[in-house]
C-alpha cells in the first residue's frame, strides 16, 4: 500500500487542535485518510511534542520531530529527522511552503525524486513567491477553490479537498440549539474579534473560545467585553468543539485585516476550516464575504456573508432574536465539507506521473 507523508512544516500543538493550522492538519489528516478509502497509508509529520488529545485514524502514523536549534525561529527550523522519515514514502504531501522545514522537504523531495503535492494552509508568502518554489511541486491539493487561484494556470494538476473529519464534526439532533453565538479561533487582531466586541450590543450573548500569545490583546478584548454577555473560554478539545458547534445559534468569522493606512479589508482565509467544521455540524456561519468563506457559506443555506462590521452585528442579532431569519443548514449539507473521494485517484495519477525510482541504478 503506498505511503503518503503528510508533512506539517510547523509546530503541531496538542493544545491548539481546535484552532489554527494545527487543527486544520489533524482534521485534514483524518479527512484525507477517509477520502482515500484505505488505499493509502499516511505518516503525519509535524514539529513539536507528542500529539495528545487527537485520535488519528488507524491508517495514520504520527511522528513528532525535533526541530533543529534556532533561538530566532524555534518552530520554524527544519528537523534533521525528516531526512530519515521521508526515505521510504511514495508521495510527500506538504501542508505549507512557508518555513525552513518546508524548504528542506521541497529540496529533499526533488533530490529523492519523490512526487511532492503542495497544500497551502495559509496565504502563499513572499519567500515562496520570490523563487516560485511552488513550481517544484508535482501537484496541488487546495483547501478551497479560492486557494487554488493562488497558483498560476500552468502550475500543475490541482484538486480541491475540504477535508473535515466527519467522524467528529457531525449533527446531533439530541442537542438543543441555544441562543448564543460562537467565536472559535486564536485571539489576534487580524481575526477581527475586537471589532465585533466594540460594536456588540449588551444583550447579545457571545461565547469566545481560544487563546492568544499576546496577553495585552487578550486583556483589551476582556475590557471591550466588560458589561456585555460575553464568556471567554480556553481552546476546547475537538469533541468539545463539536458539542459547542451543535449548541450555538451560529459561528461568527469576522476576520478583517487593517492595513498600515488604517483601512480595513476582509482577511482572505484560504481554507475557512472552522466554518467548514461548523457546516458539518449543521451550524450557521456568519462570515465576512471573502476568501474561502464564499465557498463554505451559501447565503440562505449554510449561513450569511456580510460586507461590513455593522452588517455582521445586524445578522448576529437576527440569528439570536429571530432564528428563523437565518436558515439552519440541516444534515444534508455536510457532504459539502467532506473530503472528496477523488483524492485517492489524484494520488494515483500523481504517483503514475512521477513515480519514485526503485533501488539504485549503480
Amino acid at each position, binding site marked *: 500500500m503506498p505511503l503518503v507523508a503528510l508533512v506539517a512544516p510547523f509546530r503541531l500543538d496538542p493544545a491548539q487542535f481546535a484552532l489554527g493550522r494545527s487543527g486544520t492538519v489533524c482534521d485534514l489528516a483524518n479527512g484525507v485518510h477517509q477520502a482515500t478509502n484505505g488505499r493509502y497509508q499516511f505518516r503525519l509529520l509535524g514539529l513539536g511534542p507528542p500529539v495528545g488529545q487527537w485520535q488519528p485514524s488507524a491508517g495514520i502514523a504520527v511522528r513528532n520531530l525535533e526541530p533543529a536549534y534556532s533561538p530566532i525561529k524555534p518552530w520554524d*527550523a527544519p528537523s534533521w529527522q525528516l531526512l*530519515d522519515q521521508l*526515505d521510504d514514502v511514495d508521495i510527500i504531501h506538504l501542508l505549507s511552503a512557508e518555513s*525552513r522545514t518546508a524548504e528542506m522537504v521541497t*529540496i529533499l523531495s526533488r*533530490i529523492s525524486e519523490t512526487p511532492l503535492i503542495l497544500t497551502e494552509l495559509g496565504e502563499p508568502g513572499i519567500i515562496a513567491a520570490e523563487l516560485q518554489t511552488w*513550481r517544484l511541486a508535482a501537484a496541488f491539493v487546495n483547501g478551497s477553490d479560492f486557494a487554488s487561484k493562488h497558483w498560476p494556470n500552468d502550475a500543475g494538476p490541482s484538486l480541491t479537498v475540504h477535508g473535515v473529519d466527519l467522524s467528529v464534526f457531525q449533527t446531533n439532533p439530541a442537542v438543543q440549539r441555544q441562543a448564543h453565538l460562537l467565536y472559535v479561533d486564536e485571539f489576534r487582531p487580524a481575526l477581527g474579534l475586537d471589532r465585533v466586541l466594540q460594536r456588540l450590543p449588551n444583550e447579545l450573548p457571545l461565547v469566545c473560545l481560544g487563546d492568544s500569545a499576546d496577553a495585552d490583546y487578550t486583556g483589551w478584548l476582556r475590557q471591550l467585553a466588560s458589561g456585555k454577555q460575553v464568556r471567554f473560554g480556553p481552546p476546547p478539545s475537538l469533541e468539545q468543539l463539536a458539542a459547542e458547534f451543535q449548541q450555538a445559534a451560529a459561528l461568527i468569522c469576522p476576520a478583517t485585516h487593517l492595513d498600515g493606512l488604517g483601512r480595513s479589508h476582509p482577511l482572505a482565509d484560504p481554507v475557512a476550516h472552522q466554518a467548514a467544521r461548523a457546516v458539518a455540524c449543521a451550524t450557521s456561519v456568519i462570515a465576512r464575504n471573502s476568501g474561502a468563506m464564499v465557498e463554505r457559506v451559501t447565503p440562505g443555506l449554510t449561513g450569511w456573508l456580510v460586507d461590513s462590521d455593522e452588517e455582521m452585528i445586524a445578522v448576529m442579532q437576527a440569528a439570536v432574536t429571530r432564528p428563523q431569519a437565518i436558515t439552519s443548514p440541516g444534515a444534508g449539507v455536510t457532504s459539502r465539507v467532506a473530503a472528496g473521494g477523488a483524492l485517492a485517484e489524484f494520488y494515483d495519477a500523481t504517483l503514475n506521473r512521477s513515480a519514485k525510482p526503485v533501488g539504485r*541504478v*549503480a
Partner: protein
Amino acid sequence: MKIIAVSNLYPPDGLGGYEMGCRQIVTALHEAGHEVTVLTAAPRKPIHADERHLLRTLRLADPYAPSARNGGHPQGRAHQLALAGCCDAYNVHRFVAELERLQPDLVYFWNLWGLGGISLIAATQLLGLPWRMHIMDAVPSQLCNLTGSVRPELGRAFARLIRGRFFCCSRTVIDEIKSNGVPIGPSCDIVPNWVTTDGAPARSDWLIDCKLRIAFAGAVSLHKGADIVIEAAAQLKRDGFTRFQVDLFGPVVDPRFQAMINASRLQEHVTLQGSKPQQELWKMYEQYDLFAFPTLPREPFAFAPLEAAAHGCVPVIPHICGNAEWMLDGVDLFKTERTADGYARLFRRVIQGEIDLAKVGRQAVRQLLRDFHLKTIFPKIEAGLKQATAERRPAHASTHDIYRLALLAERSVRDMLQEAA
C-alpha cells in the same frame, strides 16, 4: 566517450596529488581517444595559459584557505563551509549550462569540496546523467559537513540518494568517510593510485660511499610528519652516526622546522630544499636510498612514496595509512611506528647493514612499474567509466527547476545557519 570532469582545483593550481592525479587521468583519457572537458574553479592566483579543454568558470569557496579556517566571524566561516560542501547556486548554473552545451555521456567528479559539491551531484542526477567520482580524500563527508561535523541523518541521506559510484584509492579513506557518518561503502570500487614515471629499472647502487641518503617530499608540515623526520635525524646524530643526509623537498610555511634543525645542530645533515618540479624530483629520487614518509594514519594514498619507490628510493611509512594497505613491509618498502624512535631505529638498521636495502629497492622498482603504473590502472578506470554510461536515465527535472532548487537550497541553508547562531 564524451566526458565532463569536474575538480575544485586543476594544475598548475593545486594542493597536491588529488589535482595532479586528475590531470594525469584526463591526459590518459585524451590519449585513449575520449573527449574530455575539465570544469574547474577560477585559480586562486594568476596562472599561465591553460589547455584548450579546460574551463575555469566555477567559483571556489576555498575551504583550504587559512582565512576560511581561522579568520573572520564564525557565521561567515559556517556560510563558507555550506557553500563549499552543500550548495552553490552560481556553480550549479554554470555547470548545468555546460552540460546542456556539451551533452556529455557522463560526469566524472573529482574533489568537489569548495564548489558546493552536493548540489552538482544532485543536478547531474536530476538530469539523468550517469556519474563517477574519484576519491582520494574524505570528500563525501567534507561535503556533508555543515556545522563542524556531519549530521548523521544527512550522511545517511547522502549515501542513500547517490546513484553513481566512487573509485576510492584505499580502504583507509572509505573507512574514514564511513566513520565520519557517510556510509558510502557499498557504492565504492577500490582503485589504487599510480605512477606515470618510467622509474629507474636499471638502478643498481644503494648506500653509495656507505652513506644513507634520505628524502622527504610534500608539504613540510606536522601532518606529513616533517618534525618526526628531523627528530629521527637528531637521534642518529646523538647515537654517533654521521654518514647520513636528510633532504626535505616541498613548500615550507612554518619556521619551526628550520628552528628544530638549528636547535639540534643538524645543519650539516638536514636541509630544507624547497619545492622542485615533479619531473626533477623523480630524477633526484635515484640519488636517495630511503623516502621518509611519516604521514598521519588518515593518509588516503599518497603519490609521492609511489614515485620514490619507482626510482628505487625505498619508502618508510607508518604501519597504518592508505599506502600501507598496498605494499609489503620488507618486500617493497618498510613500515614502522609513526615516531621519531621508530624512524631512527629503522635508519640505524639500514646504516648498520642489518637490512638488504638493494634487494628491497630493486623489488620496489619492479613492483611499482608492474602493478602501479598508470598503464596498468587506467584500463580499470576506463572500464568503470564505460560501464557508467549505460546508467543514463530520463531527466527528472528541467534545467530551470534545477537552478531554482539550487537557489532555494543555498538560501535555505544560509538562513538556517544564521537563525541557529
